[in-house]
């Protein structure tokens, strides 16, 4: 979807404020939101979670802090998945008639789960359509659902730099439509192709793009 989250190349969003501090959470509630998001059964898949946060209305998205957005997304996913009711969300108290669940993630399992090597790569019978060095163009796609094809490369040409294997396709997975694995490539776009002749002649931006986003140029 063409939301404000897709902000690469925008101007006017303020100065960058470097900060060398490393604390992951600046308030206790931020850590709780992070942990709740990872521990809740609502998590579904990573793409659905990202899409949920993209659905935050643009004016709110730009105003909210990072973990406010996570909290909003978590609450929406819990409601959407019927893990909690809106009455429970309002009251903060469980419906006495609702059955008590068993947590799917127990404390003892956390260290293992956090470190478990997982892969988004899938075995497919298809063969990759592009090879390293091929010139490709990002398609001018404007889906209303989730996508990881930023607006700033749509219609632009680049070169395949690396092939990562077939990876789960967020455009499908975010909507519960299956993993639909597709070959993923690192594509190099020259800065001038993206931003015009005022850009540096030597700089580039590299994105990981699925085969379904690309055509031969």
């Amino acid at each position, binding site marked *: 979807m063409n939301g404000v*989250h*897709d*902000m*690469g*190349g*925008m101007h006017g*969003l303020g*100065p*960058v404020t470097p*900060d*060398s*501090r490393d604390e*992951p959470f600046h308030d*206790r*509630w931020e*850590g*709780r939101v*992070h*942990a*709740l998001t990872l*521990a809740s*059964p609502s998590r579904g898949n990573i793409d659905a979670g990202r899409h949920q946060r993209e659905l935050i209305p643009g004016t709110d998205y730009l105003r909210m802090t*990072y973990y*406010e957005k996570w*909290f909003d997304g978590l*609450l929406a996913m819990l409601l959407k998945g019927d*893990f*909690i009711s809106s009455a*429970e*969300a*309002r*009251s*903060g*108290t*469980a419906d006495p008639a609702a059955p*008590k669940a*068993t*947590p799917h*993630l*127990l*404390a003892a399992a*956390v*260290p293992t789960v*956090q*470190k478990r*090597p*997982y*892969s*988004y*790569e899938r075995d497919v019978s298809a063969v990759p359509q592009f090879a390293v060095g091929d010139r490709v163009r990002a398609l001018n796609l404007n889906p209303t659902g989730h996508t990881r094809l*930023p607006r700033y490369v749509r219609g632009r040409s680049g070169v395949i730099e*690396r092939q*990562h294997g077939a*990876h789960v396709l967020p455009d499908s997975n975010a909507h519960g439509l299956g993993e639909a694995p597709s070959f993923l490539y690192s594509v190099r776009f020259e800065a001038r192709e993206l931003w015009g002749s005022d*850009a540096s002649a*030597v*700089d*580039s931006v*590299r994105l*990981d793009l699925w085969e379904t986003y690309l055509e031969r140029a």
Partner: protein
Amino acid sequence: MAHDHHDHDHHHDHEQEPPSDIALRVKALESLLVEKGLVDPAALDAIVDYYEHRVGPRNGARVVARAWTDPAYRQRLLQDATAAIAELDFTGRQGEHMVAVENGPDVHNVVVCTLCSCYPWPVLGLPPVWYKSAPYRSRVVIDPRGVLAEFGTVLPDETEVRVWDSTAEVRYLVIPERPPGTEGMTESELAEQVTRDGMIGTARL
């Protein structure tokens, strides 16, 4: 609105106004999920502990220091970063598919996620606020040199700047150039030289 103070002979908790302050709202949701048996509060503590104490830029610094001192390791890191980083036992969420990119005199790499906040958690921990914020996400792809200058990193025009936008589940770790004057240092001393921003690519060492 004034409180309705009629006699309570049963609970009216479900009629309470939702807490407006974010900390209270989070606390209320946590209590609800615990009450419903959906989350184990000790698991939440363990997750917070993991991000506060087990992952962070010190992990990535060890990878970089190893690459600086062990040419065979550096080679493995550049060829298959996921496996090379796993040799140091840094694995898991948001580090599933790692790629290491090396800075040199002619090339400078810098990493962003324009669409959200993707970041290599096992080696760098959770990202700083500026990395997740609109100004960095919007500008570093169109004006990388301007953004780097705001970090105090001014690059010659002829240095090639490569911006990596983490649009998929591949996560990037920048291997900074080893600073001059570190020739006699041990691997652990070298790791002390490596900063988080050096491994994002907004700083040089």
